[in-house]
């Protein structure tokens, strides 16, 4: 279980669920809003994936299919709901292979670097900070589940889909289709390939820097909505535990893919750990 390495023959699937509700406009660290910080961290990890997939002569291999779904304000269709956050040439598409992603950022801009403090760098941008309305998290899982399910049916030997939910709020659309948020998480993680069940990781962003937790083993003492998000988060599989340890983040056995009251650095580390499942070129 969870030992299939990523290759062109067995690509991986990573789906990001990005909260675009109104509360994401709250100020965060570094004179950013939560939406800006989340978009920046997401753009950074997408760039890392593209760099990781780049092989000889700068060619990017098809190691991953990537999906990004925003929930809350839908800037394209309007109103509240879920829609693909891809723009530019990828507008309207749900899952994009890594080479297509690499070739189609919506812009290359000067952005502040998370790793280099106040320094700015030129970097590709795939996701814009957008926010408004409420938090239809169940619907986001329903939409992501459809594509994760289809993908798993077509990639039965691959590492199972990884779904990373970035949010700062409480779900506002439960129950949906007969299930509350834990029910939807259970549905989502029932999707499987031969290598294991889909993994659902959750990170709760907050301007409140108190009681931060990163990859915890218990929800003891967490304020709402920490316990619920902890309960619906998958346990980290062994390869990701090794990655976290390698990145200097101590992880105890039984740790969940969950972070609470995360700051920008935690979000960046969380995304790197959750998307690093080992690429093996063949």
């Amino acid at each position: 279980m969870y030992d299939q390495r990523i290759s062109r023959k067995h690509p991986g699937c990573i789906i990001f669920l990005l909260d675009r509700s109104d509360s994401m406009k709250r100020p965060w660290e570094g004179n950013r809003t939560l939406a800006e910080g989340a978009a920046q961290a997401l753009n950074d990890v997408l760039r890392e994936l593209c760099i990781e997939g780049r092989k000889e002569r700068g060619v990017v291999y098809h190691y991953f299919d990537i999906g990004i779904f925003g929930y809350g304000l839908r800037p394209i269709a309007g109103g509240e709901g879920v829609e693909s956050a891809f723009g530019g040439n990828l507008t309207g598409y749900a899952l994009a292979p890594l080479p297509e992603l690499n070739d189609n950022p919506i812009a290359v801009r000067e952005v502040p670097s998370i790793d280099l403090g106040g320094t700015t760098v030129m970097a590709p941008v795939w996701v814009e900070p957008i926010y408004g309305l409420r938090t239809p998290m169940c619907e986001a899982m329903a939409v992501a589940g459809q594509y994760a399910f289809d993908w798993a049916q077509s990639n039965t030997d691959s590492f199972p889909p990884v779904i990373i939910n970035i949010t700062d709020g409480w779900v506002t659309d439960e129950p949906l289709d007969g299930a509350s948020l834990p029910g939807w998480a259970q549905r989502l993680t029932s999707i499987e390939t031969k290598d294991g069940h889909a993994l659902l990781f959750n990170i709760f962003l907050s301007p409140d820097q108190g009681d931060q937790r990163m990859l915890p083993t218990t929800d003891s003492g967490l304020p709402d909505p920490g316990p619920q998000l902890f309960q619906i988060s998958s346990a980290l599989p062994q390869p990701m535990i090794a990655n976290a340890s390698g990145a200097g983040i101590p992880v105890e056995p039984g740790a969940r893919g969950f972070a609470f009251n995360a700051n920008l650095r935690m979000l960046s580390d969380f995304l790197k750990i959750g998307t690093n499942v080992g690429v093996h070129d063949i």
Partner: protein
Amino acid sequence: MRQAGKTSGSNPAATWAWSAVIVAASITGGLLAAAVGHVDWVTALGVSAVIGGGVALLAVPLGWAAQVPPSLPPGPAQRAPGREGSPGAVGGPPGQIHRRPDPPGRALEPGKRAGPDGVVRVMPLAVEAPAGAEWWQKTGAPVARHKGTERETAPPLSSYLDSAIVVQCPRCGSFRADVRQGPAEWSFGCQECGNRWAWHPGTPWPSVAVRPRLRGENRPPPRHGGRP
């Protein structure tokens, strides 16, 4: 068994020649065995002829079976550029493709946008509503997908590109804007320069001028709204 006349690329004359060679080789072997083993040459000749003939007859249909009839669809290797079995593969099996029309100016044609390994595998959002069970009701091990078992869960995006707007302040070009949806219009407020404007669906988006120096001026005080 397929008939010779329905195969593609087979050569009946060559096939029968190979059969004759097999029979001759078998008889020769039988005669040599008779000479070495002091067996009656008539018996050796008969046995070898029967065995050789049988092998030759088996070889003929096997040779035909190896041919690919031209009426069959191309195999996976010919189904470029999509990946075999990929739900959204461009050029994949019929019924598994839900690709919205390419918008003007887009360049995602399969042949032109193939990845380094020949793969174009963008999975577009489903826009149809196939009947059947919900995806979460299909539990158990992965199985082959069947046409008509999918569900429309994606938002309607038929006019996605025509209405695609990323909110950007017309005055300074900032993407940091507050958005409010009214009954007939959308109201915006730039968090960088304080500019406020409204937009009615169906009307052109106001032209944007990028003036970074205006940012920071007239910035409204941050509003800490409650979490939704």
